[in-house]
């Protein structure tokens, strides 16, 4: 018996409006003019590790295949090197679109439990918010503990070297204005960022509607 490896996608696999929603986020509006030329994939330094190439992510997003996009490994592999954004002939800010997709994936829990990238991102934001600064050594330790503490064991040699060269910090860096920072965040605490989708998609008039 031969198992099938390709699937036929049905309209029910799409989440209509997903692409349009992504395009309303800052920096993402130009996705509509993607011509699928593949420059982004060609310049991407980590594309070989991706399940979908960046170009395919653009196509899937625009076509509303929310599940495939948010479950894809590609978005977590993006290292924010901005090569795609700089080279895109349509000036699409691909890196910013990937950020947007990461945010959506984190908000709706679309990633494996011990997946390091989102865990690091979460730990990073928690530490930045609590202390005002990042202490890399402690951040990485926390990430390993939450994802794969065995891996941390594998890093002991590097850790020791960092300690011996004075690059490993044992105590967290903290700013004085922590209360001030918390007050700032509290002022805008909303679970999901609101990009106020004004009007129907494709509506060009801004603020002139009744």
């Amino acid at each position, binding site marked *: 018996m031969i198992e099938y490896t390709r699937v036929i996608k049905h309209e029910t696999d799409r989440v209509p409006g997903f692409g349009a929603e992504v395009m309303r986020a800052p920096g993402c509006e130009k996705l509509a003019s993607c011509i699928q030329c*593949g420059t982004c*994939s*060609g*310049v991407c330094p980590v*594309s070989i590790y991706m399940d979908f190439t960046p*170009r395919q992510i653009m196509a899937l997003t625009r076509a509303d295949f929310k599940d495939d996009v948010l479950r894809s490994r590609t978005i977590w592999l993006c290292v924010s090197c901005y090569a795609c954004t700089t080279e895109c*002939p349509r*000036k699409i800010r691909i890196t910013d679109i990937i950020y947007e997709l990461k945010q959506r994936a984190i908000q709706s829990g679309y990633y494996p439990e011990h997946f390091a990238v989102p865990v690091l991102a979460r730990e990073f934001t928690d530490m930045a918010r609590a202390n005002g600064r990042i202490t890399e050594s402690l951040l990485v330790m926390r990430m390993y503990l939450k994802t794969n503490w065995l891996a941390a064991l594998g890093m002991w040699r590097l850790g020791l070297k960092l300690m011996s060269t004075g690059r490993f910090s044992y105590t967290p860096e903290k700013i004085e204005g922590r209360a001030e920072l918390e007050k700032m965040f509290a002022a805008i605490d909303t679970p999901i960022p609101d990009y106020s989708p004004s009007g129907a998609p494709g509506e060009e008039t801004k603020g002139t509607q009744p």
Partner: protein
Amino acid sequence: MKDEPEIRIGFYVCHCGTNIAAMIDCQAVARYAAQLPFVAVSRDYKYMCSDPGQELIQRDIKEHALNRIVVASCSPLLHEHTFRNATEKGGLNPYFFHMVNLREHNSWVHSDGSKATAKAFAQIRAAIARVPHHKALEVLQVPIHPDVLVVGGGIAGIHAALTLANAGKKVYLVEREPTIGGHMAKFDKTFPTLDCAACILTPKMSQVKSHPKITLWSFSEVVKLDGYVGNYQITVKHKPRYVNEDLCVGCLECIPACVFKTPKFPDEFNQNLGKRKPVYIPFPQATPQVVLIDPEVCLNLKTGKCKQTCVEACGDRQAIDFDQRETFDDIKVGNVIVATGFKTFDAHRIPQYGYGAFPNVFTSLEVERMINTSGPTSGAIVGRDGKHPDTVGFILCVGSRDEKTNKWCSRTCCMHSMKLAQLIKEHCPRTEVYIFYMDIRAPGKGAEEFYDKSLRMGIRFIRGRVAEVTDWAVTPEEEGRLVVRCEDTMAGFVRRIPFDMIVLAIGKEPQADAQDVRRLFNMSCGTEGFFLERHPKLAPVSTFTDGIFIAGACQGPKDIPDTVAQAGAAAAEAMVLIDQGHIEIEPNTAHISEVDCSGCKSCLPLCPYTAIAFIETTKKASINAALCKGCGTCVAACPSGSITQNLFEDDEIFSEIAGVLAYE
């Protein structure tokens, strides 16, 4: 208006199918107009510009004794003429008509029906307030000088000049390079038929030179244009070529005689791939067959110290003239055809593709010269390292379809690259040729077949825009070669392919001085910098200035067949005016009421056409209607209000202002 009969306005609002009616309630507009002062008839109709629509106006004029017509439809730039004609056919002076732009300025640009309809009310109220002030005007007629100036001697200019000359019209053809022929003269073969460019072009070039009706001025530029349609005065500058064109017989004996024994200066015609001497002819079939001397490198012109062996070789023909200076000619023509062509994209602007950094990266035009048997390599494809490439990669859309450089498609780089690829395959069938493309654009006669032929010849097509050309090797076979990195979007993975030669299919741009040329000939440019046609579909070779036509790639990228078709069209448009013998011009000129003029002379310096004269005997200003072009600047500036502009009288505009504001 006192002695005139009672004003009776006919008002018509056009649905334009659904173009207007879908956004604006046309029936409500007609009802609104019906109750405005002086309106005798108010109707809405599906298509006012159609014959029945125009007949409706004519019938109403008779049946309802109308004496003013207002049509609310599209832009006056499109159909004002149509409705003026209808008004005239109905028995009224055509200038008793006024038009309201409900489509371009309203229904197409708004998305709220009730607000659009309210705006329409204001627009038509203005027109209905304005039109009673309209006066009967006579059309002005201007004679057309029968001669034509053609600017640019590429295939477009050559074809336009020959068409006109064969019809018996006198033509001046001005070309700024030392020879006519343009880009086409550099091509080896032409797609999709692969006929040799020189074989089809050079006969036309020599026809130009020998045609009794054509004056060919090469190495010359238009520096000044005055006048108006039918009566242009033009100044042409002839640059010194240090060779007397009338005395040179094109024997070329001066070239081997030059004190520089070997050619050592970059040869522009061969894209700097070859070398030439200070005294040279761009290419063997150059027209006119006259040599020229490059003052930048000629020993005699630079230092004054040279044995002048060229003069010796010329002998008693005495064609070489080191004292030659710029000269000027003044001519009069009725029409001008601008065919100034394009510039190729500078591949240095995309450093990722390594042009200038890696010796074996070439532009498509360089390869075009290389593959030409009379070119710098006598037809051989060789890299700058002297080796014949086993693998050649063509990168398409270099400087095209890219928002960081040029947004537009070059329209020819797919076909051009396929042509070069086929020629390389023909020259050396073992060569592996790849074409990296985003979309293959092969419209037009024979083009799809040409694409199919390329595929069958084994040219490999990879759909993906190349990310980078690099000398970063990761496998042994990549060492020392140029590696293309790109996503093969059809296969769905990123590939690295090593090449011996990369060819960049460079895009087309407006000429570097397109803005100066545009100002010189009073034309407009589109956002991308190509000259703007009057209407993209219906007036593709006309400009907004009467008597100035455009043809070829100066209007936008195009291939040779389209260029020749446009050149023929431009010649035909010029001939229409010439054979009419005169042109009717809009009577929107200004005139001065002598009684009211205080003789303050404020208006005199304002007129760019020196149409206003001060009459010493009466101490009053006076406008020459033949010179006035109807801008109205003097009208706005006249302190005594004694200048009036037809069609734009103060009363008319004031009532329009009141009209647009009368509706809440």
